[in-house]
């Protein structure tokens, strides 16, 4: 497997500029002759599809929702980072780069992160020009807030709906291109496979989710922007439809899967209430700007929060990390919450929660200021829990939220399969072992607006393409195989629902491969997953038929992929004998319980290669080098 990251020469700050000059261009009149298949209409997919179409390429864009505007990016609440330094508080491109590399626990690629920081400012400009209604100060200037892992205010936001506003910006650009006839948009369609011809990605197999028709979509390049795979845990903050199918099918066709074990557990989510739970709801990280996290000092203290006097509370983040306090990065905050709950100091009925308390902020700033800042989040919390956070501290607990791992890509965002490009959460590129808040929106839009439009041209300009169409045997075979796989699921006619298997898989993953991991548990998971998979294919019940809208069948296909993919997540967690970012191995910690990295042996990207259904996948390494930021013990004390 060739893992050449193709990082351009030159000083860090000039790499992207040099590369943009060195890349091949496609003559404007020729652009419409190239067809790009884009899967996904989230921030990454919509921005990429719209921008490539503006340039003149011929674009087809697929998503599984009924409208492009409903991609999961819509749910992002808190904000988007940029190095504008509007607050004059010491921010710069270099600082955003530095914070992101450090926040990622020195497991990301410097050159990619630097480029991300460089284009961050243009993203904000672009969004404002599109009419994204960011929050503003009375003077009419843009407002900022702080997010975890940073000591400057660089996060732009639109109430608690930043994701929705940014996505509607990208969606409106996309709609404009659809009207212009340059983008063919195909919602309610699911990608079931990738088609590779003569070593290059040339298209995908699609299922029309309304009629059940399975057909080929072909072109000259494929762009996957299909989001993250957090739902391998069943419960997560992701939308119900989020899946790994597109990325996993690409992996089975030869794309390397990088760092699958890196996932982010978000510290502030509404705790689980029972078995019926279908998803977990995030309470934005921005709340930690004003909320204080605490648990009772005493084990088993069951008093109501407001009856526990100040002196008997442990504001453990402020105590352990005085310089960052409640704004430590997510991995650190989540682990600290788990530790206090493990000690028996958790709160609420299950003991699996900590308090996030706004009483001081309300006293200091007044209720209306807090309402202005977080009104919709408080409303949502109240709705779900039936408790009023203005008078009672919120109860929160960590939940699976984001996947830093993803398909391996080089500096041009191309995977190990030529022609297959991967953007947004679906790739592995910029966040290392832990993502900082408000950086995913930035990355998705950077990839889509400002990187792929250049690099795709370079790919087209550097290659010649034989004309193909859907009749090509590779398409016919793949479509056939996808159809028979679905039929096989329908034919099992067993006794258990798809959801029940998904829930069991989630349980295995959360128990053995969740917030903290150890060899024994991971080995257990490696035994339990194949057993569950075998049972799934023997006993799953998928009612209905394939030639209609069939929700159970859609889920069955996704869960079948999760049941295979979960194994590489566990293998990766097992192979990484260190703790870094979101990956915490109990065997590797300091006496104070902090994560212990091993730079000597693990300063690499672990890239998994598929070898066949009955073979073990093989791991390859991309060595990471750090020219600007010296890896150090990440300290937020």
């Amino acid at each position, binding site marked *: 497997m060739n893992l050449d990251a193709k990082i351009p020469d030159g000083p860090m700050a000039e790499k992207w500029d040099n590369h943009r000059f060195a890349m091949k261009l496609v003559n404007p009149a020729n652009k419409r002759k190239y067809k790009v298949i884009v899967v996904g209409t989230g921030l990454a997919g919509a*921005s990429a599809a*719209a921008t490539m179409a*503006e340039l003149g390429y011929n674009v087809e864009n697929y998503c599984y*929702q*009924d*409208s492009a*505007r*409903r991609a*999961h990016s*819509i*749910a992002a609440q808190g904000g988007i980072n940029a190095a*504008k330094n509007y607050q004059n508080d010491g921010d710069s491109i270099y600082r955003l780069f530095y914070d992101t590399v450090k926040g990622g626990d020195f497991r990301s690629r410097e050159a990619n992160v630097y480029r991300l920081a460089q284009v961050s400012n*243009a993203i904000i*400009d*672009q969004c*404002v*020009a*599109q*009419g994204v*209604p960011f*929050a*503003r*100060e*009375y*003077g*009419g*200037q*843009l407002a900022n807030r702080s997010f975890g892992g940073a000591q400057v205010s660089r996060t732009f936001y*639109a109430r608690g*709906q930043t*994701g*929705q*506003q940014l996505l*509607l910006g990208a969606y*409106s650009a996309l*709609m*404009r291109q659809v009207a212009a006839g340059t983008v063919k948009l195909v*919602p309610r369609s699911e990608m079931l496979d990738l088609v590779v011809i003569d070593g290059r990605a040339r298209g995908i197999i699609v299922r029309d989710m*309304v009629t059940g028709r399975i057909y080929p979509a072909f072109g000259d390049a494929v762009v996957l922007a299909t989001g993250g795979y957090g739902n391998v845990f069943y419960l997560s903050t992701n*939308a*119900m439809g989020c899946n790994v199918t597109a990325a996993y099918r690409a992996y089975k066709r030869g794309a390397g899967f990088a760092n699958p074990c890196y996932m982010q557990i978000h510290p502030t989510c509404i705790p689980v*209430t*029972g078995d*019926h739970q279908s998803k977990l*709801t*995030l309470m934005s990280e921005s709340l930690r700007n004003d909320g204080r996290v605490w648990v009772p000092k005493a084990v088993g203290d069951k008093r109501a929060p407001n009856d526990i006097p100040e002196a008997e509370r442990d504001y453990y983040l402020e105590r352990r990390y005085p310089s960052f306090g409640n704004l430590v990065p997510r991995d650190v905050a989540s682990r600290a919450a788990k530790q206090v709950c493990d000690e028996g100091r958790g709160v609420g009925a299950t003991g699996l929660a900590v308090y996030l308390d706004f009483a001081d902020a309300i006293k200091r700033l007044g209720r209306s200021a807090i309402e202005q800042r977080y009104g919709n989040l408080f*409303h*949502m919390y109240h*709705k*779900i829990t*039936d408790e009023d956070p203005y008078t009672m501290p919120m109860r929160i607990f960590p939940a699976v939220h984001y996947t830093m791992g993803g398909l391996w890509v080089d500096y041009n965002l191309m995977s190990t399969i030529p022609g297959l490009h991967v953007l947004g959460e679906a790739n592995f590129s910029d966040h290392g072992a832990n993502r900082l808040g408000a950086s995913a929106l930035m990355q998705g839009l950077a990839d889509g607006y*400002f990187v792929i*439009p250049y690099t795709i041209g370079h790919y087209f300009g550097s290659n010649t393409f034989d004309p193909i169409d859907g009749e090509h045997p590779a398409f016919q075979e793949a479509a056939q195989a996808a159809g028979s796989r679905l039929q096989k699921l329908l034919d099992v006619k067993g006794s258990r*629902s798809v959801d029940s298997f998904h829930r069991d898989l989630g349980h295995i993953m959360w128990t053995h491969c969740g917030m903290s991991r150890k060899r024994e548990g991971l080995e257990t998971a490696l035994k339990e997953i194949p057993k569950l998979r075998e049972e799934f294919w023997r006993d799953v019940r998928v*009612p209905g038929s394939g030639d*209609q*809208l*069939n*929700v*159970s069948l859609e889920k069955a296909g996704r869960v079948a992929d999760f049941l295979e993919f979960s194994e590489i997540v566990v293998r990766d967690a097992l192979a990484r004998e260190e703790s870094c970012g979101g990956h915490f191995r109990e065997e590797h910690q300091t006496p104070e319980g902090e994560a212990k990295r091993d730079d000597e042996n693990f300063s690499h990207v672990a890239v998994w290669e598929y070898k066949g259904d009955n073979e073990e996948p093989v791991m390859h390494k991309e060595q990471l080098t750090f020219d600007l930021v010296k890896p150090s013990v990440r300290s937020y004390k």
Partner: protein
Amino acid sequence: MHLTLHVWRQKSANDKGRLVQYEVDNISSDMSFLEMLDVFNESLIAKGEEPVAFDHDCREGICGACSLVINGIPHGPDEGTTVCQLHMRRFKDGDTIYIEPWRAKAFPVIRDLIVDRTAFDRIQQAGGFITINTGGAPDANALPIAKTEADLAMDAAACIGCGACVAACPNASAMLFVGAKVSQFLHLPQGHPERARRVKAMVEQMDAEGFGNCTNHYECMAACPKEIDVRVIAELNLEFMKAKISGRE
């Protein structure tokens, strides 16, 4: 708790469809309405029947996918709430609940509780954007926008495109939805150069899709999970008049 459900079942767009009565048990008040439907669907699957199909995705009230009429009210009885955020503590043991899809000519049923809302996308395609290519935008702070105006734009932009406004309106009008987009760009200077063309094109498309006219019932505002104010309809009307009179493109 135990509930009696009357659920709209329709196999496909061409099928006639009808309400079917079911009984469901073991519902806890902590469940969301959609989790109740999950439990109910599991019971159907256990009996070998096909589960009820409904649209949903984020389950946090923001994607606009969920779209159920509950006892005659789009998104159910809670104000400012999507059905995915509605909780069963709002109901009591023994209740009877009617669950139906959005009903409007422009939103044909695809299956059970799922309707086709692509008409909304086509309205956006007609003019719901600011014409600007990627790249070359001026510095974001070069154009100050008064907070009050930015807030009004944001109020309108909060629309999640779920279509409850249409489902609630006796005329199946989409004026709240279209007004929200027009209003967002009206309160931002970036939106001004194209305002006449935008409003005309969006209204024209809205009519072509078969949405009805607004006759001031304001049911849309009552049903809107984001509580978009009907002021956006007034703004839409005014903009439309101005565009017509000025004859500007």
